[in-house]
């Protein structure tokens, strides 16, 4: 998984009805865009050091804009 600052990370909900968790990648700490990432979550809005699991996807800025 690779990302750049400004891209969005989405963590899928684990249970039925549980919403996905969205955040913005503020900083990439790993080499060549790899984790860990500093992520600012939409909710609660704090920045944390995050190691994504297999249920996380990076949504590139262009793709996000294209949907809107």
């Amino acid at each position: 998984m690779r990302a750049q600052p400004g891209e969005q990370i989405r963590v899928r909900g684990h249970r039925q009805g549980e919403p996905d968790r969205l955040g913005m990648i503020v900083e990439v700490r790993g080499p060549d865009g790899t984790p860990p990432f500093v992520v600012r979550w939409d909710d609660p809005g704090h920045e944390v050091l995050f190691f994504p699991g297999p249920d996380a996807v990076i949504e590139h800025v262009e793709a996000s804009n294209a949907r809107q």
Partner: protein
Amino acid sequence: MKVRDVMVKAPVTMDIGATIGDAAAAMDRAAVGAVVIVEGERPVGIVTDRDLVTRALARRVPADARLDSVMSGGVVCVDADAELSQVASILSTHPIRRVPVVERDRVVGMVTLDDLIVRLTNDLHSVTAGVMAQLLFGHPEPHAPVMVV
């Protein structure tokens, strides 16, 4: 105070390919309530004793199923050199009780809510000890004022 001053060193980690039974046995051996799941050295998830009960036992998932079938994917971590207040901030804004501690992308420790409460309680006791002594034994009497004529 830094996170590394408070963290429990050598947390239990397991490869993502390990089984639910392996995790339960590891928790039993190490007397811990959570295992950090790693791929290589990098954390990718966490499994707690509660996860084993609610996501595995309650749903009759067999003990030889892979851990990634019950783990919480993605791990909120804290850097070992971060200030301890950062852990308090994470615990107050995320529904978690344990925060793995990392150096670069390797797990080197764990800080739990319980650890933090014990630490803060001890610190509070140190601060209040002086006040308690004054309440119990009174202030030391100052020297009588000297009247200069």
